[in-house]
């Protein structure tokens, strides 16, 4: 059983379980699935600084913070007890592209050539962690949701604004991965 769980899970299993999160949260307490809101609650709880956008009763949204704490713990449990010793299976075409960027290590879920503490104080680290993270936080809040709130919860509820947001996410992502990244990797 454990061996079975250690293998990478099929997309249909993951999709089913993620999809079921939507009714689970609704039935557990009329809660709408969404993750980027947690970043707002953190701002409201820690650094409201008089900004009207952060003046609300974040404690009422504490369920969301418990939820994301669970995601953190789940990540820990999966990596600690269910990790797969095999290297990642990545599409050949992508491997060739990434090799041009100097990325060849597929031992972990994230390439150590980027996501290691050695890169923290370099230009690479600044772009991938600081700039990238900022765009994620700023963009999701500006859009009023992320992949979970818009693409999964919003689309499940047949919301046109969520479809527009999802299409925008994808356009931004395609541009970033195919146009920006090749330019960014030329810097190092």
């Amino acid at each position, binding site marked *: 059983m454990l061996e079975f769980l250690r293998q*990478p899970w099929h997309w*249909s299993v993951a*999709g089913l379980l993620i*999809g*079921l*999160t939507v*009714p689970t949260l*609704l*039935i557990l*307490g*009329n*809660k709408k699935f969404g993750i*980027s*809101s947690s*970043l*707002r609650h*953190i*701002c409201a709880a820690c650094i409201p*600084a008089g900004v009207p956008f952060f*003046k*609300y*009763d974040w404690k009422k949204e504490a369920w969301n913070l*418990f*939820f994301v704490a*669970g*995601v*953190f*713990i*789940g990540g*820990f*449990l*999966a990596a600690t007890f269910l990790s797969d010793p095999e290297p990642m299976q990545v599409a050949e075409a992508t491997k060739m592209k990434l090799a041009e960027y100097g990325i060849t290590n597929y031992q972990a*879920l*994230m390439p150590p050539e980027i*996501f290691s503490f050695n890169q923290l104080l370099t230009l690479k*680290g600044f*772009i991938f962690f*600081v700039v*990238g*993270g900022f*765009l*994620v936080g*700023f*963009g*999701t809040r500006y*859009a*009023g949701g*992320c992949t979970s709130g*818009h693409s999964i919860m919003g*689309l499940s509820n*047949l919301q046109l*604004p*969520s479809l*527009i947001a999802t299409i*925008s996410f994808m*356009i931004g*992502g395609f541009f*970033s991965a195919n146009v*920006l990244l090749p330019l*960014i990797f030329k810097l190092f």
Partner: protein
Amino acid sequence: MFHLKICKIYMELTKLKEPQVDVRYQDAMCTNESQLKHPWWYNFKYMLVGIIFGIVFVKAEIISWFRIQEMFQLTSFHMYGVIGTAVIVGMISVAIIKKTKAKSIYGEPITLDNKTFNKGQIIGGLIFGLGWGITGACPGPLYAQMGAGFGVVAVTFLSAVLGTWVYGYLRDKLPH
């Protein structure tokens, strides 16, 4: 209109001094319409859902920067399969909940609100997309990546919190 009403009730209940109706409305912040007051430890059940969610994120490699690159390079079906299946399962679930007028386990009617369009969904969406392609993470995977031991992602996470804060600070000056 229904949302505004709920937000107003919510404001009264929480005794907010400043009008937050519009702010909360536009950002789908009035997402938690539950009027029930529960002890804080009731929230642990959401943590349990989060734990399962986090395990799925890691085991289906959704947190992987490689899988996100494959998705945007159109070299793998994996992420499309995950999101597509999740949306279909979610749609069917929501349809059943609406049809049966299902209630939460506390007997509260389940409310599903409509989102209104604003330009932020396009502009913000594009900005988030740029970040998604670079970091290989949307907000959910950020938490799971940190949990899975990629400690340096804490920097990405803090920067995302900062990005959220700067959005809140500049909000009135941005087109919506």
